């Protein structure tokens, strides 16, 4: 797959932290158009932090974020969304007091003037029938897994160019996990670039073109999904016995 050419997303020397504690120690990550890249690492490795950096929620102390040739460092989170960088954040983060439908519509906020938003909504309901059933309910009253589906649906409403997924399968029933990975594969086929953080590392690496292994703020390994899956140290650390 695309391994050469200009990357869609290019991270160089990313450093950031919380207060005095540095969480990322100068990372380089490059993701090419159409690629699906998995990021694995233990709790606290800094995976979520990295995604926040890309979305512009976490300020940098050093390094650059380049997207489609444009330096994003000065761009606010909202501007990045308008450029097509969409994230499904960790812990769902649905708007608890708004209805399910409003949540989905807000997903399309960046392109609210498009004509096809209503159609997209209908398509989303087809994909997650439960959301249609619950569309008038406050999102906060959904079950954990339903919220996770909503978060995913909300992000898809934005028609991402680069989709950042922070543990999209968390709290989902096995059948739905299959569904989610199915969606990822589908999006991949549509040519959408995907950067996914997954604890379900074997599944993620299996569908990914490439993977990065993050350990306490440093990238310690990278390679094709297959290589990493067969890497012994990766196995021991993330894939379990």
């Amino acid at each position, binding site marked *: 797959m695309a391994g050469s050419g200009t990357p869609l997303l290019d991270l160089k020397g990313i450093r950031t932290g*919380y207060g005095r504690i540095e969480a990322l120690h100068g990372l380089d990550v490059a993701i090419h158009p159409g690629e699906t890249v998995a990021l694995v690492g*233990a*709790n*606290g490795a800094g995976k979520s932090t990295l995604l926040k950096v890309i979305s512009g929620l976490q300020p940098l102390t050093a390094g650059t974020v380049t997207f489609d040739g444009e330096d994003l460092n000065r761009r606010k989170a909202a501007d990045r969304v308008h450029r097509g960088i969409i994230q499904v954040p960790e812990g769902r983060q649905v708007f608890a007091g708004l209805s399910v439908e409003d949540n989905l519509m807000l997903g399309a906020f960046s392109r609210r003037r498009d004509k096809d938003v209503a159609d997209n909504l209908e398509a989303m309901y087809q994909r997650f029938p439960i959301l249609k059933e619950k569309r008038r309910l406050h999102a906060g009253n959904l079950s954990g897994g339903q919220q*996770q589906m909503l978060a995913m649906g909300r992000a898809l409403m934005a028609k991402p160019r680069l989709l950042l997924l922070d543990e999209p399968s968390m*709290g989902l029933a*096995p*059948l739905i996990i299959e569904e989610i990975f199915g969606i990822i594969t589908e999006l991949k086929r549509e040519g959408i670039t995907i950067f996914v953080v997954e*604890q379900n590392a074997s599944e993620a690496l299996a569908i990914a073109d490439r993977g990065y292994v993050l350990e306490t703020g440093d990238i310690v390994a990278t390679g094709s999904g297959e290589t990493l899956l067969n890497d012994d140290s990766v196995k021991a650390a993330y*894939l379990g016995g």
Partner: protein
Amino acid sequence: MTALLSVDNLGKEFGGVHAVEDLSFQVEKGRIHSIIGPNGAGKTTLFNLITGLYQPTSGSVHLNGRSLAGHQPHELAPLGMCRTFQNLQICMNMTALENVMLGRHRHLKQGTFTSLFKLPALRRADQQCREECAELMEFVGCGQYIRHHASAMPYGALKRLEIARALAASPDILLLDEPAAGLNRTETDALREVIRKIADRGITVVLVEHDMKLVMSISDQVLVLCYGRKLAEGTPEEIRANPDVIDAYLGNRHSREEATA
């Protein structure tokens, strides 16, 4: 064996939606009892009913033969029941250790005057509690965060912190709501050992979890919920082979995988 926890004809309705309906089951002392089911099946609602956060629309819950009807959530810890949450409930304004110490609340003196004057007995007890809670954090595998502020901890560690807090209350029965969410396989394996050890201490565990590998490998009994009702109940082997469960929840691929795991 007698039932430690007994749920009888329990029902909960939210404006026409039956989140839990006519549900009965029993959990025996010292066992690991898992509850699985599709998203929105009513598992968390069931926990909320048992722990008094919701009032049931019908039915009853008994703990050790004692009805829990009308109990406030805070009255359950003294009765020996503790839980963790699917959507974390962590006090972000406190340190990790203090969160765990909160769990020991019911074992410590809380008198206004004792506290105002900070009598030596209180100070000693508090120090002892501090050390015990630090040990508990090691036990559940988030020892490196003892000195951290809770707000500075990653998600996975917070999940474990909640387990430590629940254990701090030295409960007889522990309700875990998706403890493995956000853990990778290796970390889940470690969690399995923790749960095993908890059970070995004689603590009854009720586990809600979507990680089938974990559920199937440690449960004594599995209950399957679907649309608020009981779909099946039995040993892991029975459940894995149940075609209804495969249809509604596991899916073919998974059941095959788990069967060979």
